[in-house]
């Protein structure tokens, strides 16, 4: 019965979306379609869990997760502050700033670029789950070690993007600066940094999801007795899967919002870039 309901929900949701997408693209449909898609997914999930009688300690139904989220609002908020605000955000800011500064230095000295980028590639391939315990050992249990993990995670993607961006000026744009006898710093501020913005935002968007994951994963390897990663890892042990999923939902919402915020900022800053302009 429930399974049938799930299939119906899927078909109905999809059909509705096809119909909506076929209509003229307004702001509202652009927002409605993904929301409907998500709702359909949730319905199907609920139906399947109930239909197959899956134990709540393996996969709880969305209704139970929502109920739990309602009950444990305080815990979720406290964990959110610890992980997202203290850990992820501070690490994100430090990591991205450091990467941009490094990129400028690396870009200035070609020797460094050729030496650092290949080695950096290798270092970036080190899996977080290996690095996190080490950084927790070095920087202690509190948010500082989470920030450190985030710094390590976001640094390299950000560096690569910025270096790439700083090189993304056309020869003509640079020559123009030369004919004005503009110095290195003037060229940097007036030409190369603005031109690099699309790449920098690419990096910032990528880093926003990495930051959150990094902070949460780092908490698996040591944390004070609060934080989203802490809650997830300990609640699994206690089979409170509804709480685990509530935290995951918070993480996904926070991550998507973070990403979306960056995308909006990108739109505001790089409005001039062809990818941000509609039509021609």
């Amino acid at each position, binding site marked *: 019965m429930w399974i049938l309901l799930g299939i119906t929900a899927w078909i109905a949701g999809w059909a509705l979306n096809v119909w909506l997408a076929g209509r003229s693209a307004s702001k509202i449909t652009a927002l409605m379609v993904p929301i409907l898609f998500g709702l359909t997914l949730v319905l199907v999930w609920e139906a399947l869990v109930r239909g197959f009688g899956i134990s709540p300690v393996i996969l709880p139904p969305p209704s139970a997760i929502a109920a739990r989220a309602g009950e444990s609002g305080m815990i979720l908020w406290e964990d959110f502050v610890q992980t997202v605000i203290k850990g992820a955000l501070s690490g994100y800011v430090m990591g991205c700033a450091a990467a941009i500064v490094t990129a400028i230095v690396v870009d200035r000295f070609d020797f460094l670029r050729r030496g650092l980028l290949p080695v950096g590639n290798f270092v970036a391939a080190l899996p977080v789950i290996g690095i996190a315990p080490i950084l927790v050992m070095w920087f202690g249990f509190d948010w500082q070690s989470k920030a450190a993990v985030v710094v390590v995670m976001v640094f390299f993607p950000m560096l690569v993007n910025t270096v790439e961006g700083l090189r993304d000026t056309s020869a*003509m744009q640079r020559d123009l600066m030369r*004919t*004005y006898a503009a110095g290195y710093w003037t060229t940097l501020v*007036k030409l190369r940094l603005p*031109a690099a913005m699309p790449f920098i935002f690419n990096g910032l968007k990528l880093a926003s999801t990495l930051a959150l994951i990094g902070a949460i994963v780092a908490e698996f390897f040591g944390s004070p007795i609060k934080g989203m990663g802490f809650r997830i890892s300990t609640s699994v042990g206690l089979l409170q899967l509804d709480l685990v999923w509530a935290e995951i939902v918070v993480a996904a919402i926070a991550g998507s919002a973070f990403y979306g915020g960056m995308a909006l900022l990108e739109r505001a800053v*790089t409005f001039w870039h062809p990818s941000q302009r509609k039509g021609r």
Partner: protein
Amino acid sequence: MTDPKPEIARHPVIEASGLNLTFDTNDGPVHALRDVNLKVDKGDFVSFIGPSGCGKTTFLRVMADLEQPTSGSVLVNGVTPEVARKARAYGYVFQAAGLYPWRTIGGNIRLPLEIMGYDKAAQAERVRKVLELVELSGFEKKYPWQLSGGMQQRASIARALAFEADILLMDEPFGALDEIVRDHLNEQLLALWARTQKTICFVTHSIPEAVFLSTKIVVMSPRPGRITDVIESPLPKERPLEIRDTPEFLEIAHRVREGLREGHAYD
């Protein structure tokens, strides 16, 4: 410039002697410039014409210190191009408009003024003036992509005119424009040149344009890039559009065309 000038009394504005420039590429060297000699005096309007790849752009770039000659020398106002560049002697209009997309038209024109440290009021005044000159008043707040190709070209010309450089280097500035707009801008440029006594080096593919504008026409030829002819124009400084139907005009045009044809493989 029909009246003879005392050549020795002052430095020529540009003096190239025995200039060679070779690019090293994977399939061997490309001789972009071979033994180029040229003298440009103050107030000259020099056009460069020649088949694609004959080194016109390269020559302009050498003058502007954007490219280093392999041998020979260029002197600008008696000093090296580098010194001249640092003294901000040039206004350069590139082959494509090359406006910065993140700045408005006004912002683009203001850019060199900011770099050169003009104060705010002077910046605004100059921007207003050059925009008027190229007939773009009212577009100051627009972004480059909101303008048609021709308008972008004009904006980039305005940018080069905004700060008063004595030497204007223009690389096919009117390439993307239709005949009427082109005629109009030709007249404007001539008027500006007559008024300000700038020295202008101008690259074009159009023979009538070259003849109409110049006091001196430099015909170039490729492989290796070299100067094959330098034609001093006998036309008066005052040039209405109708001058293009005069026999003198057609005569010079003919000579340029012949020079050009030699540079090509056909016939």
